[in-house]
Structures are given as structure tokens and as C-alpha cells.
């Protein structure tokens, strides 16, 4: 991974901006995110800071890999109106990302916020470390690595994301959840706020950086005054809401949805971490609906990824990740109703598509239906390739609701 550290203070950032600038915040979702200075959360924090200071933020653009010029071009094409209106782009990327974005937006004011030091590792003990510094750093190759704190001290940079302690407090309102008052952010997504307050709601299709589609129906809640059951991932918080997150009816419905998922996917289901957790929570021990096990073709034609449709629950995370984060739109749904499947390209092998190998789909898949290829072979004994490392899972679709 490429190691980068924030090189710009918030005041310096503001000096690069005019008050009438229309800003797009652009972030990479790979190396620089692991260095703690990018990603959707950081973009939201920066947006809050800028908005409080009176700046106009038009859009937050999350890109799966900012060092790919073609992905940057596709993001530009997909949001042409917004980029035509924008006058400045603030980058939460490494310096390679800066070069890509300035290439794609030659006439735009592009503000880089990070300095790139070279390549390194993600260490379990130390976090990101620099092992192979670029010549401009004057540091030597060191397998033990230089920690980010050491780089921050040595090069007089910034250890955290834009003055983390200065992020303004968002406007809070009070709602009632299961009979108790709860302070939450105004206009936020209900599911996000419930989870932020440690109220566990089951969900499989929702990730805040990909947005909501309400496909899995696991996060249903009751809201006083609203008809029926409401998916909390698609609900914006309003003043005075009275929410019920657990009662007998909700638990029965969630249990049934989960049992349908399990039935389609057979016994392998217990190997998916998310699903296993909810099975324990709802005390599901057996396969209630006996359906024939899916036996679909496992596609390993892609150089980096393996796609196993038998584990797919049609949550659409891969489809949204490929369209929104990568911009390639290689994965999509085909067919309707109970025959819905995810397909790659024009229903062709994954390896024949123009997949950019950005791994966004694999990163967001909750059931390992798309996994990175990691294979091993013992030359003596078992001289054939076996997939290693990734726990097997499976499930089935609730796409049609």
C-alpha cells in the first residue's frame, strides 16, 4: 500500500479556497483510507467543517481507486453537471490520485491535502507503516517500517484528520426509541444513528458509503404514525419520531426473512459471519424451508476475483460499488422476480469484462459471493490449486422484497 500523511492544515486549506467556491470533496477508498485521512466518514467530517464556515459543498465523490485515470474519467462523465458547476476539488487521496485528478480536470482548482512517502505495509500492531520510502524523504528501506507518528514528527505534518477535535457538533434532535429518549443527528439515516447509539439492527444490503436500496428487509422498524413496517436504512430522522426496533412481530418477520435466506443457501450459510451472528440472535438452528440447493457455475475467469452465485443474496452491494465507486458498471442485475441474478458484463465470464480490479465489489460483499482470488498449491502431496483464507458463505436473495 502507498503511505500518505496529511500535509495541509485546515487554515491552509481555507486559504486555498474562495468563499464563493463550489466544492467537490473527492476521496480514494483504498490505501489512503487505511492511513486514516480519507473515506466516506472523513468526507462527511470535512463537509461539516466547511459548511459551518459558510462554504458550499456540492458533492462528496468516493472513488474505489484514485490512481486509475480511467475511473476518474468515468466519475467525471457520470456527474458532468456537478463538475461543470464546481470550481474547486478538495482531494483526500495520495499524490498519484492528485496527478490523476489534475489530468482529468485540467482547468479546475484541485487542492491536494496529503504528502506521499512511498510504499509500506498495514501492520497488525502498528497500523500503516512506511517500509520503502521515496528518495525525497531521505529515509532508507527498512522492513520494520516507520510509523505514521514518526513521519508526522520528522516532517512536521498532521497526525489526525483535519483537526478532528474541531469537527462541529451537528444539530441534534430528540426522538424516542423503544420508549426511551435518544439524541440523534437531524436528517441522518435512522439506521446509522441507531447503530451509532449501539442499538443493533440486522441489515445485509445497507452500507452508508453505498447508499440505501432497502432490498434485504432485515432492518424493518415500526414508526408511530406511519403505515406498515419501515426499512430504517431508507428513513431520514424527523423531530419527534417514536420508533420501535424490537417486538414480537418484528422479530418474527426478521426471523422469517433470515430463514428464507438460509433455505436457499443451504448449510454453508453458517460460515458467513454476519448471518451467523443473526442466526444466533434469533435462535435459528435448522433449515426451515427445504429448497433444492443452488448449483450455479462458479466463475473464476477474472484474474483477481472469484464470483460464486450460490452465495449471492442479491443485496446489490457489488452492483452499487461497481457503479458508484468504480464507475465501471461491470456488475448488474438480470432477469426479474425469483429468477433475478447478478451478472457481469453482458452476461459473460467475469474475465471477459472490463473489470478494473479495484476490488470494491469484493470489499462490500457481505456473504463472500465475490472474493479475492487467493490460491495455494503444495507441490508434493496435493499438486493442485485450492482457494485459501476466505471463509465460505452463502445465502439467497430477497431482492424482490
Amino acid at each position, binding site marked *: 500500500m502507498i503511505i500518505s500523511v496529511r500535509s495541509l492544515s485546515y487554515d491552509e486549506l481555507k486559504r486555498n479556497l474562495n468563499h464563493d467556491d463550489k466544492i467537490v470533496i473527492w476521496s480514494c477508498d483504498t490505501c489512503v483510507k487505511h492511513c486514516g485521512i480519507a473515506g466516506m466518514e472523513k468526507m462527511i467530517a470535512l463537509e461539516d467543517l466547511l459548511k459551518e464556515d459558510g462554504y458550499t459543498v456540492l458533492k462528496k465523490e468516493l472513488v474505489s481507486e484514485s490512481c486509475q485515470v480511467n475511473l476518474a474519467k468515468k466519475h467525471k462523465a457520470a456527474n458532468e453537471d456537478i463538475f461543470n458547476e464546481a470550481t474547486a476539488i478538495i482531494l483526500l487521496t495520495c499524490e*498519484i490520485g492528485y496527478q490523476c485528478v489534475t489530468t482529468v480536470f485540467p482547468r479546475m482548482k484541485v487542492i491536494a491535502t496529503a504528502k506521499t512517502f512511498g510504499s509500506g505495509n498495514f501492520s497488525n500492531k502498528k497500523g500503516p507503516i512506511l517500509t*520503502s520510502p521515496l528518495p525525497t524523504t531521505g529515509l532508507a528501506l527498512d522492513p520494520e517500517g516507520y510509523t505514521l507518528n514518526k513521519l508526522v514528527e520528522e516532517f512536521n505534518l498532521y497526525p489526525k484528520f483535519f483537526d478532528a477535535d474541531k469537527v462541529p457538533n451537528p444539530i441534534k434532535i430528540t426522538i424516542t426509541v423503544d420508549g426511551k429518549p435518544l439524541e440523534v443527528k437531524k436528517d441522518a439515516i435512522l439506521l446509522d444513528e441507531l447503530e451509532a447509539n449501539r442499538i443493533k439492527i440486522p441489515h445485509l444490503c445497507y452500507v452508508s458509503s453505498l447508499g440505501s436500496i432497502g432490498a434485504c428487509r432485515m432492518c424493518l422498524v415500526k414508526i408511530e404514525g406511519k403505515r406498515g413496517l419501515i426499512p430504517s436504512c431508507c428513513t431520514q430522522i424527523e423531530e419527534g419520531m417514536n420508533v420501535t426496533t424490537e417486538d414480537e412481530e418484528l422479530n418474527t418477520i426478521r426471523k422469517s426473512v433470515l430463514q428464507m435466506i438460509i433455505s436457499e443457501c443451504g448449510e454453508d450459510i453458517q460460515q458467513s459471519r454476519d448471518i451467523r451472528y443473526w442466526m444466533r440472535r434469533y435462535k435459528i438452528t435448522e433449515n426451515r424451508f427445504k429448497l433444492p440447493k443452488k448449483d450455479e457455475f462458479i466463475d473464476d475467469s477474472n484474474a483477481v476475483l472469484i464470483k460464486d452465485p450460490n452465495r449471492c443474496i442479491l443485496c446489490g452491494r457489488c452492483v452499487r460499488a461497481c457503479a458508484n465507486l468504480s464507475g465501471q458498471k461491470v456488475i448488474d442485475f438480470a432477469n426479474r422476480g425469483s429468477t433475478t441474478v447478478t451478472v457481469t458484463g453482458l452476461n459473460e465470464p467475469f474475465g471477459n469484462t472490463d473489470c478494473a480490479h479495484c476490488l470494491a465489489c469484493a470489499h462490500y460483499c457481505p456473504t463472500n459471493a465475490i472474493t479475492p*482470488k487467493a*490460491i495455494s498449491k503444495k507441490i508434493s502431496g496435493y499438486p493442485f490449486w485450492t482457494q485459501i483464507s476466505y471463509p465460505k458463505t452463502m445465502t439467497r436473495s430477497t431482492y424482490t422484497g
Partner: protein
Amino acid sequence: MIFAKIEAYEEIIKKLDKKEDKIAIISCNTCARTCGNGGLNKLNELGLRLIRDGYYVTDEVVILYACSEPILREAKLDLDANTIIVLSCSAGWACFTRNFADKKVVKVTDDIGLVLTDTDKEIFKVVMPYKNHESEMGKEYRINTGEPLVGEKIKVRCV
């Protein structure tokens, strides 16, 4: 992404002991594969050549990132080898050096620089070169093979 060039085969075997070394070859499937020095193809190429020349190769592994300890931990590698060849950039070599301290980890690549890519055109371009490779600045190569290209296909504004 990080571009590292693999050394010539003759240089690699100078670092190996035909009698003593039981060799595992680990191949990175991200940057190194993109730049033509990792992935399954390069692993097979090097593995077959070493076996043909009488070296004792015990394990061959394709790993998603060679530079990530969480990925390495998940992979739970059970290597019979006492020597590891890592087909990756020096960050991958550093990661294996730390995590397999009881084994000889052989560095067989040289970092050229940080690159930007265009996967539609199948090109990558060196934009931040490492020491002793400053002349590589702006040079373009074919993705997957690392074959040098003539002319400039990606016009980078600020190089």
C-alpha cells in the same frame, strides 16, 4: 500502485541453495500482477523453471496483497519451506521478512516507482520514481506484462 521489476532468473538462483533450500514462492495479485511481475502467470513461470533446474519448490501461493498483515493472517499460510521468494514490491518482501523471521526471505525485485494506471487502455505510467530509477519518470508500460511502450498514451498534466 507500486511498480517493481523482477530480477533476471540468473540473479535469483544466485540467492538460492539447491541442496539446502526448500522454496515457497508467494506471488502478489495486485500491484505486482498489474505490473507484470506477480500473479499466477509469473508464479507458474518461475516455479516451473526452478523445478526444471532441480530446485526443491514446496509451495506456490497467490495472495491478494503481499503487503498487508491482516490478509497474511487470514491466509493462514502453512509453508513447508525454509526459504520464501516473494514476487511483489519491497513492501511485500518487508511484510514477509517480519512475519517469517525464522525463514530466509529472498528479495528478487527492485522498486521502480509509484505508478498511475489506465485499465481501459491497459497502460501504467511511472509518476514518482524510486532512487536510481529517476530516468523511468513518465515511462509507460503494458499492464499485466510490464512490456515497455513507445510514446505517451496517458498525458499527465503535472509530471
